């Protein structure tokens, strides 16, 4: 399992432990079966099939990249089984057999843009890894910019795992944007921030808004390379709710005091609770019954209140913009005030009309 997938699994196991300690669901303990997708999409599909067909599990929590979800989607739809997908993603999807507990674009990308606009950043440069999420995100960003009098000075993609960013940094510097919107993935972020920093670009002159950099990644990038930069998520380890204090404490107690919590982990942790709540409501683990019961389920979670939208099976989430601190934690500097209704197809945004 790749880096972050492991910690999401850890968070989900913590939730299962907690629920079991409190008596389980419908008087039964939840028994986890763990399979490793090995960061390989077809393997995700294979393992999903195994869990459903052979292990006959009640539901599946997991998936990481968009590609892993797209690979598993037909498996769940054709076998009428349930997947809980815990990662922020590019939207434009609403499978009847998937619950999306991470943010869709209007809960992460759009608030990120709102924040930049509010701060007077009118000229943006888009940097992303070459795959579905960044390309879709950037399409949305361009539509948003066009409608809001913002200017896109450049749009650059690099192959996954790319580590040579001097040319790209040169292009960014030459374009002189007010801010950079960063959808790079994984290790590329390390190289990008290191090389941006050593080129003398600071967060004060040209902030970088990242949507795939969470607490776990900060250390690998090097705190001094990213301190002061912006990120957009729905949850930080520092988010100030009683549920989060409990979550962070429990996670550290179980996995070690040096561990951090992050948005995808929290979304995975939530997913287990949301499912358990829906099962209680339905009185059964039957997929169709759970789906029906899940609509409108509301829980107070570490990120604040979350509610399942029965129409698109996404979750109402509060958007939060944060700044990376010198200690590696992320401090919230802005939030949407209340949970945002998920809108994976951006139907309620007039500027997004031409997108789908």
């Amino acid at each position, binding site marked *: *399992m*790749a*880096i972050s997938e*492991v910690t999401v699994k850890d968070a989900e196991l913590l939730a299962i432990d907690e629920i079991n300690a409190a008596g389980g669901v419908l008087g039964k303990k939840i028994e986890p079966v763990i399979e490793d997708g090995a960061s390989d999409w077809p393997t995700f599909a294979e393992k999903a099939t195994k869990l459903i067909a052979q292990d006959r599990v009640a539901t599946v929590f997991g998936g990481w990249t968009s590609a892993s979800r797209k690979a598993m989607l037909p498996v769940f739809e054709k076998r009428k089984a349930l997947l809980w997908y815990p990662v922020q993603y590019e939207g434009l999807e609403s499978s009847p057999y998937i619950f999306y507990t991470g943010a869709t674009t209007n809960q992460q990308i759009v608030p990120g843009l709102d924040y930049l606009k509010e701060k007077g950043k009118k000229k943006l440069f888009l940097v992303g890894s*070459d795959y579905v999420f960044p390309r879709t995100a950037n399409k949305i960003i361009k539509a948003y910019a066009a409608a809001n009098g913002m200017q896109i000075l450049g749009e*650059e*993609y*690099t*192959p996954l*795992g*790319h*580590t*040579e960013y*001097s*040319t*790209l940094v*040169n*292009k960014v*510097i*030459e374009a002189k944007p007010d801010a950079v919107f960063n959808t790079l993935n994984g*290790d590329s972020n*390390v*190289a990008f921030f*290191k*090389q941006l920093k*050593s*080129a*003398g670009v600071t967060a004060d002159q040209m902030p970088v808004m990242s949507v795939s950099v969470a607490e*776990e*990644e900060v*250390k*690998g*990038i*090097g*705190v*001094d390379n990213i301190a002061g930069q912006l990120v957009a998520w729905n949850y930080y380890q520092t988010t100030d709710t009683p549920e989060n204090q409990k979550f962070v404490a429990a996670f550290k107690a179980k996995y070690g005091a040096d561990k951090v919590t992050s948005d995808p982990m929290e979304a995975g942790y939530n997913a287990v609770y949301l499912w358990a709540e829906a099962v209680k409501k339905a009185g059964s683990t039957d997929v169709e019954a759970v789906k029906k019961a899940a609509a409108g389920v509301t829980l107070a979670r570490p990120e604040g209140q979350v509610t399942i939208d029965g129409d698109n099976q996404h979750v109402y989430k509060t958007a939060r913009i944060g700044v990376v601190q010198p200690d590696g934690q992320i401090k919230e500097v802005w939030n949407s005030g209340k949970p945002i209704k998920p809108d994976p197809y951006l139907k309620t945004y007039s500027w997004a009309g031409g997108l789908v």
Partner: protein
Amino acid sequence: MEGVLNQLPIGLSIGAVLLLIALGLTFTFGQMGVINMAHGEFIMAGAYTAYLLQSVGFLIALPAAFGVAGVMGLVLERLLIRHFYGRPLDTLLLTWGVSLVLQQAARDLFGAPNVQVVSPTWLRGGVGILPYNRLFIMALAVLSVVAIWAYLHRTGQGRRMRAVMQNRRLAATSGINTGRVDQVTFFIGSGLAGIAGVALTLIGPVGPTLGTYYIVDAFLVVVAGGLGQLKGAVLAALGLGLLNSYAEFWSDASLAKVIVFVAIIGFLQLRPQGLFVLRSRALS
């Protein structure tokens, strides 16, 4: 316009990185015909050495990484590779197995996430588009090449190495202990990977999969430069660096990689053995 001009030093600095990662291979691949897929993991070992020694000092990490990666190479040579001489393609698969084991070992030792290596403060800042850390990498590449050249041409051990490189059988019959030369070659070649690893901590991620990002590029440099050819490797690395720099500047990073590949295939049409060849009359 300034951007276009900036791509020149950027290209050279990309070339310097390519040269550092490929330099060791020109010896292990070039001299011994060993396709060492674990070369990337020796680079990784160098990077982790810098991570472990960052409280002691960055410059200390250079010789230390040379030693660590060099010894790893030596052990690999003694334990496995020496049974495989004359079977270069088998060494490729063998060392791929080794590289998988080393990656997993790194994951178990240091954890799957990238680790933080703080660049030394004296490398902060820069001249024009080139940060000091890039200049440092270029200087390190130049220094490595000069040191290797001096070693090959000014020391007895180096002369023996060249002799083995040109004609193993003849060297053996003239009383050179080729086994010993192989060990030294592998030690040096792997050690250079370690130095590259330290340099890469300045610009890239330090994690278990570090080596996989660089290994294909490193081999392409050696192929384009010609086996065992120091000047070939230097020219190929700089050429590919510049090509990469401008191709990416005028298109994008994805397309640049494809362009570089097509250029190498085209180049091999003109010079199938790379830039420089050791002439030999033997019927292979």
